């Protein structure tokens, strides 16, 4: 029983990270129509810069803020240089963002080397014991950050003027342009948000999982699975999808074999794509061939 609880907790923690990455996907996809295959690399860039700045002697809060800013700048550069020219072209968009991911990984390997690096935990390493399960304090940070980010995003999308513009551009870019919105600017905003979310996800999980130059791809793909499972809509769907995926992974790693963990995640993806492509909360029509 305590095993199951342990798996559930680690699944929730990993799942919230997938959810955060997944929301980043939707921020970009909704406005540009491009799935950013370099999304996971935002998390890598954020975590690696936080580690580098922190180990250079800066206090943790400063390192985190700077790392998020750096990632946002990277996201803006990517949007302007690589994504803007191929807007709306699915196949070229996929290839270009894969290429961007390759470049980011290569640059990261040159700057920070190929070794996996840790970030110290935000609030000590002392383990907490709850109901027979052991919890790292950092896990609570992950859960809390994810919850706050998701709720804040949901409110942003539904309650603020910026969020309304954002959704308008997502629903119908042409009509949004007609009533005077700058779709290009919204696309930039989408990338900045997505970069910030990716960086936050990468930084908050860095003390638990080691980060190295190529961790991004796996994270990105898992984030996309979370999006699909939850429905390609808003933050709540992605969070739900991430948690389903994370918990399923944790249980299959615990009870079946950790080698098959990835295969099970992708079997879930295939299952959802084929039988419920709109996800748990999404609509069906947009993905049908």
């Amino acid at each position, binding site marked *: 029983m305590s095993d199951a609880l342990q798996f559930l907790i680690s699944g929730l923690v990993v799942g919230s990270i997938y959810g955060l990455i997944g929301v980043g996907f939707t921020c970009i996809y909704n406005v540009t129509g491009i799935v950013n295959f370099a999304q996971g690399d935002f998390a890598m860039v954020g975590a690696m810069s936080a580690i580098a700045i922190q180990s250079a002697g800066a206090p943790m809060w400063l390192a985190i803020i700077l790392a998020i800013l750096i990632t946002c700048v990277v996201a803006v550069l990517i949007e302007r240089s690589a994504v803007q020219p191929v807007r709306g072209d699915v196949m070229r968009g996929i290839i270009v963002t894969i290429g961007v991911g390759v470049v980011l990984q*290569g640059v990261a390997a040159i700057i920070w080397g190929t070794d996996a690096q840790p970030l110290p935990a935000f609030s000590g390493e002392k383990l907490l014991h709850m109901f027979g399960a052991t919890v790292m304090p950092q896990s609570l940070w992950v859960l809390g950050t994810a919850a706050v980010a998701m709720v804040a995003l949901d409110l942003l999308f539904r309650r603020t003027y910026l969020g309304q513009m954002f959704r308008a551009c997502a629903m119908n870019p042409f009509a949004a342009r007609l009533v005077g919105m700058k779709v290009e600017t919204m696309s930039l905003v989408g990338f900045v948000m997505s970069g910030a979310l990716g960086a936050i996800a990468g930084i908050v999980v860095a003390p638990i999982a080691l980060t190295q130059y190529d961790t991004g791809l796996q994270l990105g793909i898992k984030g996309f699975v979370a999006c699909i499972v939850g429905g390609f809509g808003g933050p709540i769907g992605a969070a739900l999808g991430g948690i389903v995926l994370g918990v399923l992974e944790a249980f299959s790693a615990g009870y079946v074999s950790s080698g098959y963990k990835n295969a099970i995640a*992708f*079997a879930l993806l295939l299952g959802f794509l084929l039988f419920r492509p709109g996800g748990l909360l999404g609509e069906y029509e947009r993905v049908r061939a």
Partner: protein
Amino acid sequence: MTSWRIPALIALLVLCAASRSGYLVSLLVVIGLQALPAIGLALIAGYTGQISLGHAAFYGLGAYGAALIGKWFGVPAWLDVILATSLVAVIAWAIGWLVFRLKGHYLAMATLAFGIIVQVGFVELHDVTGGPNGLTGIPPLALFGYTLNGDFVFLPAVWVVTIIAIVCAENLIASPTGLAMRAISENERVAGSVGNNVQSIKRLIMMVSGLCCALGGSLYAHYVGYLSPGPFDVGFSVKLLLMVAIGGFADVWGVLFGVIFITLLGELLKPLGAYDVVAYGVLLVVSVIYCPNGLLHGLSALLGRGLRIVNVGRAP
């Protein structure tokens, strides 16, 4: 199609083989082996407009399939190549039946998932595939009692298959089905409305595409004699897509150029060490953004513009 290209290609191959350079010949073998899956991918992604990020899996299934069929049933190498290729063609058809309910990014992700699941299978099924340690002792191909051992004898075998594949691909593209393929890539609804069975054409092309990949993979298995899961990962699927993109998507000879270009570039960039990945990625991004019809077209357009500027400059 242009008839001078195949003789020119053969002449080039003979010339390279006549140079007696072992390095050059082994490069040519690698190019021939990778041209098969690249052409396969061009058929489905370039001509039919259906992206796939899982073609490395078909290549890998062909390789492991040939090796395992040879090992289990003791059939001669040429027969296990044929058996494995046909088996993978059936698998590709079935995968097409599954994934072509989707389009765009969802299709990309579904094929990516297929690729990763197969890759995990290669690593985890220790009893069958040997796991991360791989399969060893795959016998070389033998034809008419003559063992194709070594680069110089394997070269003609590989390129005969590759050239046959090129000719077949060109014929397929020029056929009515080929017209339907290109119509589907332009606009699926229009293609369907004039009486094409869109889904069944997509599945058929997926089958042909998987067949090309598996043929390349099974020849690869007999060429290297040793298989590990590494070469069949997502990275190889991306590399294939890059070759197709550099070649200009819907252009068989362009894709062959893409294969040659990427292979040679990989060799040239080796001395750069860690920077090669960056150069590779930048090239990918730049060529896809600025040369939508392939690197050759892009360069010749650039050259044409340069010449025009020079000529205009000279004009009084």
